[in-house]
C-alpha cells in the first residue's frame, strides 16, 4: 500500500521531468527560434531581468488570487448557510443567482474597470465573481444532503435545529465544500489573470502584455509558469486542509 504510493509519486515526478526534457530536446534539436519557443534554460534566465520586477508582480497577482478566492469562500459558504436556514430566501434568491451565474464573468471585466478603475481590488473582484458560484452551489448541496433517517434520529431525541446543524449538516457538507473549493481554486487564477489582461498596471498578466510587444517570449513563458505555480500553491493548500479536516472515506472526488 505504502510502496504503491511511493511508486505513484515517483512516476509523477518522472513524468514532469520527462516533459521538461522533451521541451529541451524539441527546442535544441529542432533549432526553434527563441522568440517562438525558448529553451527551459532561456526561460529561467528571464528571471534575471531586473526591470521586469518579478517579485512585485508575483505578489500583486498572488494577492488578487488569494483575496478574491478567500472572499468567495466566505461569501459563498455564508450564503449557502443562510439558504439552508431559510427556505423562503433560498426559493427567492437561488434561481436569481443561477441566472446571474450564466453571465460570462469575463464580459463583466470592462464594467468592473468602469466602476472600480484598475488595480488589485477590481482584479480580486474578477477572481471572486468567477469562483463564488461553485463554492455556493456545492456547499448548498452538501447542506441539503442529510439522510432523512438521521433527521428522524435527531428528532426522536428532540434535538434542536442547531444540534442538527453542528453535529450532522455542517460536518456532512464539508466534503462538498472542499470539492467546490478545488474547482474554485483553478477558476480564481483564471479570473485574476483575465482581470489583468483587461486593465491593470501591475501583475504577471500585465507583464505578459508588456513583453509581448517586445517579443520577449522567455519572459512570457516564465510568467505563465509563475502563474501556474501560484495556482498550484493555492490548490495544494486546499488539498492539505481537506486532508486535515475530512476523513478519507468522506471525501468527494
Amino acid at each position, binding site marked *: 500500500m505504502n510502496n504503491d504510493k511511493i511508486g505513484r509519486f515517483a512516476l509523477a515526478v518522472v513524468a514532469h521531468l520527462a516533459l521538461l526534457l522533451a521541451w529541451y530536446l524539441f527546442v535544441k534539436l529542432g533549432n526553434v527560434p527563441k522568440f517562438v519557443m525558448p529553451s527551459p534554460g532561456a526561460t529561467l534566465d528571464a528571471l534575471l531581468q531586473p526591470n521586469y520586477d518579478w517579485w512585485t508582480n508575483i505578489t500583486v497577482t498572488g494577492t488578487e488570487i488569494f483575496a478574491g478566492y478567500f472572499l468567495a469562500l466566505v461569501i459563498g459558504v455564508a450564503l449557502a448557510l443562510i439558504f439552508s436556514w431559510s427556505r423562503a430566501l433560498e426559493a427567492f434568491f437561488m434561481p436569481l443567482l443561477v441566472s446571474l451565474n450564466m453571465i460570462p464573468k469575463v464580459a463583466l471585466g470592462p464594467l468592473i474597470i468602469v466602476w472600480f478603475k484598475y488595480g488589485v481590488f477590481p482584479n480580486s473582484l474578477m477572481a471572486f465573481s468567477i469562483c463564488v458560484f461553485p463554492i455556493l452551489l456545492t456547499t448548498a448541496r452538501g447542506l441539503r444532503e442529510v439522510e432523512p433517517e438521521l433527521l428522524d*434520529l435527531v428528532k426522536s431525541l428532540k434535538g434542536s435545529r442547531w444540534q442538527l446543524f453542528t453535529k450532522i449538516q455542517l460536518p456532512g457538507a464539508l466534503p462538498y465544500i472542499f470539492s467546490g473549493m478545488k474547482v474554485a481554486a483553478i477558476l480564481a487564477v483564471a479570473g485574476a489573470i483575465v482581470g489583468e489582461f483587461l486593465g491593470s498596471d501591475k501583475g504577471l498578466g500585465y507583464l505578459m502584455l508588456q513583453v509581448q510587444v517586445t517579443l520577449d517570449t522567455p519572459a512570457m513563458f516564465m510568467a505563465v509558469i509563475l502563474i501556474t505555480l501560484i495556482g498550484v500553491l493555492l490548490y495544494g493548500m486546499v488539498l492539505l486542509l481537506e486532508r486535515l479536516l475530512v476523513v478519507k472515506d468522506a471525501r468527494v472526488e
Partner: protein
Amino acid sequence: MKGGMMAAPFIHLAGVRKIYRRGRQEQLAISDATFDVMPGELVSLVGPSGCGKSTLLKILAGLHAHDGGEVQLGSPEHPFDPSRDIGMVFQAPLLLKWRRILENVLLPAEILGLPAAASRERARDLLALVGLAGQEDKYPYELSGGMQQRAAIARALVHDPKLVLMDEPFGALDALTREKMNLELLRIWKESGKTIVFVTHGISEAVFLGTRVVVLTAGPARMADNFEINLPRPRTLDLKTQEVFGEYTRRIYKLLGME
C-alpha cells in the same frame, strides 16, 4: 415478560389510524392497529413492504402524528419520557463517516446533553456488549456492514432508552450475517432488558426473534393478527428446523395470502 393480565402494558395501541394526504388524495396507511406490548418484550412487526410497518414505528417514535385511535407509551411502573426513551436502528447503519465508532455511539448522549465521562464509559461497555471491543477508534468505513450495524445498535442503547425501535435493521445484510445478527440481537436484548419493536419483512426472522408477532397486510393496510410465540429460550438456529417453528411461519404465510 409474561406478567399475565395484571401487569400494565408498556405500549398500548387501540384502533390507531393513519392517513397520508397528498393534495386531495387520501391514502390509508394504517387502519385499526390494536395491540399491547409488555415491558421487556421483543415484538416483531411483519408484513410486505408498503403495509405501514415503518409508519407505525414512526408513530411510536413520536415522529408522525396519528389520525385516530389511542397510542399510549409507558406504564406507572415504567414511566416513559418521549425525549429520551427512544432508541432507533434503521436498515442502513447511518453512522457519521467523519466520526470514530466511539464518537458515533455517543451521538444521542451528546444531543441529550448527558454527562460526557459517564457516557463514554457506557459507550465502551455497549461496544463490548455488541462485540466491537477494540474497534472504538476506527472509522465506519473500516468496518464491515454487519459491524457497522452493531455499532448502530450500541448507538441506540447509549442513552439507556426504555424502548428500542428497529426498522428492518438486518435487511441489507447477507443471509449468513443476518442469522448471526439475529442471535446477537437476542443476546443483547436479554442482557439489556429493553423493550424492542422489530420491523421486518422476513417471516422466519419475525418468528425466531419475537415474543409476539404482529402481522400487517397491505392494500388496504390493516392489522391481520397478533399472537404470542411460545418457543423455548434461549433460541438457537436449530429451532428453525422444528415443526412448531414451521407452524408459526405457515400461519403468517397464510395470513399474507401466500399459501
